[in-house]
């Protein structure tokens, strides 16, 4: 069961990763822009069981680590994505109202992204990654939050339906 679900999710993640690297990154969006792979992975994780969420987080983390724009060592995003996906999956499955509440969904995704970025900064600092000055960090964090808040409601229906269609686990939002 898990193997079938993951084998379906992997091509989707790869396609989103290519879309992110080839198209979205071409636009030099103000204040850092957004990571579609991160948003989709978290949406996917909220809608999935913790096992699937962890595996999805691992795959997307590896892909994010392989990106040229990633400044940290390979494995940093993987570790963070596994943890974050698992966490949001637990939070998502614990909240009965979340699946019917796109606003709550968006809030959870955005919060998770911000916390993930902070965790990335913290672990990056521990691992010796140069991340820039405090002003730059603050602006990027605010920018990513705003972008995520804007993009999540747009992609949520698509990936929610895709998830429901693929796994038939939870109701589509």
């Amino acid at each position: 069961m898990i193997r079938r679900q993951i084998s379906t999710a992997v091509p989707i993640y790869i396609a989103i990763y290519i879309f992110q690297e080839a198209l979205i990154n071409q636009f030099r969006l103000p204040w850092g822009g957004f990571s579609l792979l991160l948003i989709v992975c978290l949406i996917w994780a909220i809608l999935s069981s913790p096992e699937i969420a962890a595996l999805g987080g691992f795959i997307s983390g590896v892909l994010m680590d392989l990106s040229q724009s990633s400044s940290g060592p390979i494995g940093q995003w993987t570790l963070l994505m596994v943890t974050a996906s698992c966490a949001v999956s637990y939070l998502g499955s614990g909240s009965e109202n979340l699946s019917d509440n796109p606003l709550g969904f968006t809030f959870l995704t955005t919060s998770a992204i911000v916390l993930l970025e902070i965790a990335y900064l913290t672990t990056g600092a521990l691992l010796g990654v140069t991340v820039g000055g405090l002003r730059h960090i603050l602006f990027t964090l605010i920018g990513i939050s705003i972008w995520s808040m804007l993009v999540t409601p747009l992609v949520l229906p698509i990936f929610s339906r895709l998830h429901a269609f693929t796994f038939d686990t939870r109701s589509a939002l």
Partner: protein
Amino acid sequence: MRRGAEGRTRLLLIILIVTSLLLITLDLRGVAVLKGARQASQTILSPFQRAGTVVLSPIKDFVSDITRLGRTRSQIENLRTENAELKSELLNRLSADAQLDQLKSILDLAGRAGFKVINARVISQGSSHSFAQTITVDIGSKAGIKRNMTVLSKFGIAGVVKDVYPNSALISLATDPSFRIGVRIAGSQQIGILSGRGNRSANLQLIDNLTTVKVGDILLSRGSISNRPFVPGVPVGYITSVDNSAGAIAQSASVYLYTDFAALSIVAVVLGASASNPGDALVPLKPKPTPIPTVTIYITPSPTPTD
């Protein structure tokens, strides 16, 4: 059953976290495989990124144009203004250079002849509706200009002061149909009267019918009493054709005037001249032909014939 599922999830999570930590450790230790993985990922992505660039460039340009519309407009306006200023500056510079060149030549001419001159800038070209050929200069009686003073260009005679005002003066050009000047041929010293014809070509009437003139002869001003209206020895023009028609009372010739009246921006008004006549000292030198370099190519035939 549920506890088993939870245990499996926990185990999977631990395995994934440990794997992540292992990846971090290996990467930080500089394992080549992981570095290669990132390079391989970029190699795979490159064609997609190139395609993305091609596909998105019109959209990016459009978005960029939209977002920079205000800035672009103001930038275009600034550049236009700057361009106009630079063009104006360049024109002024070119004009100044041309004026400087004329001024230097005039001063050189006047200096060689020992004339006392005052330079003037042409401020107006006379209207042609009255068929007169005149210019107005920016100095007048306040600068010592008087009627019937010789006006020089860098090439020679330009005209004569026709009317004087306090701060300007009207100059009758040598091309004016009413313009008359006594001239002599450099070398032979034959004399004649040159009259304007409305263009750069003037008419010469020689006094002595027995005089022989030829094409290319240079004419100099003969000079007047008290150097007014004309100082002596100033180049006027050269003969381009001679009319030797039988029965003519006086020999006539066409003369091409030295002064380029179309490009006249600086002139000099002769206030006084030295007592000595400069003679033929001001005859312009014939232009030296510029040598054209020739290239000689030697071709040595090959010792062995080729097919």
